[in-house]
């Protein structure tokens, strides 16, 4: 799709806003609709748009497969790790109240961390699935 200049210019303009909107959805999930899963999907879709328009090789240079697959695992480990930290602090698994003294702050911290984990895993998985398909199609 490298020869369509309109598509290239428009996606170049839109891409930062898509990624920014994904971060907004991620961090604003406590107050409005959305959360880690939706943010991850939007972020992944932004990366896929880049790969579609500018080619798989360029996208691979931005996000090598080793980095993306480690993000995939780190997200899940972050989620489970928050649960384990809660265990060590004397609560139940994923019982955020023990993370801080004030239960409200503790809940917000716990929820923000696990949503971050969900977002990382989902974005990395979506991007990985698309890239694996695209690279196979090229061969």
């Amino acid at each position, binding site marked *: 799709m490298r020869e369509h200049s309109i598509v290239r210019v428009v996606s170049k303009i839109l891409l930062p806003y898509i990624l920014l909107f994904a971060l907004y959805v991620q961090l604003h999930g406590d107050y409005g609709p959305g959360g880690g899963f939706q943010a991850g999907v939007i972020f992944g879709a932004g990366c896929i748009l880049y790969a579609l328009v500018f080619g798989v090789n360029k996208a691979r240079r931005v996000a090598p497969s080793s980095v993306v697959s480690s993000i995939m695992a780190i997200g899940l480990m972050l989620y489970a790790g928050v649960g384990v930290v809660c265990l060590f602090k004397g609560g139940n698994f994923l019982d955020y109240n023990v993370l801080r003294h004030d239960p409200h702050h503790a809940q917000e911290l716990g929820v923000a961390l696990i949503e971050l984990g969900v977002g990382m895993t989902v974005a990395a998985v979506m991007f990985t*699935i698309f890239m694996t*398909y695209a690279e196979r199609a090229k061969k």
Partner: protein
Amino acid sequence: MLVGTGITIIRQQNLLAASMLSGIYSLLSACWMVELDAVDVAFTEASVGAGISTVLMLATLALTTRSEKKPVHKSFLPLFVVLATGAALIYGTLGAPPYGDPANVVHHHVAPRYVNDSYDETGIPNIVTSVLASYRGYDTLGETSVVFTAGVGVLLLLKRGKRSKREEKK
């Protein structure tokens, strides 16, 4: 419109058009969910159903073919199975409590606590987020690991690693 789009998808022989139409179907159902005040679900449906899954289906079509193959078997047995299951489901809904009745069991189990106390207990204004991430943290952990497993599965099945390249050289 939803029903019309669904029927068009079934009748479509061209798989490219069918996947485009399924994206439209997702977008329509997202609008319908906004109408029902389920904004979080609508958001997910719009981003996953209309966005990602359409792109993934198109990527799959690029790997396979664009048009549907002629079915080799007669479709009477599947039709019978579908009709029987549908009839059983409709029979099952006859025993369900009346729609929208405030005295229903679902409105009196944990829902009142979520609606009334979730802000005091978690400090999070969006009830959906507090239920998903805090009260039902185990479920969301399970969902995340399902997504992770899907990614790993695709990598294992489709990725051509260094080893297969070496085998090709042999």
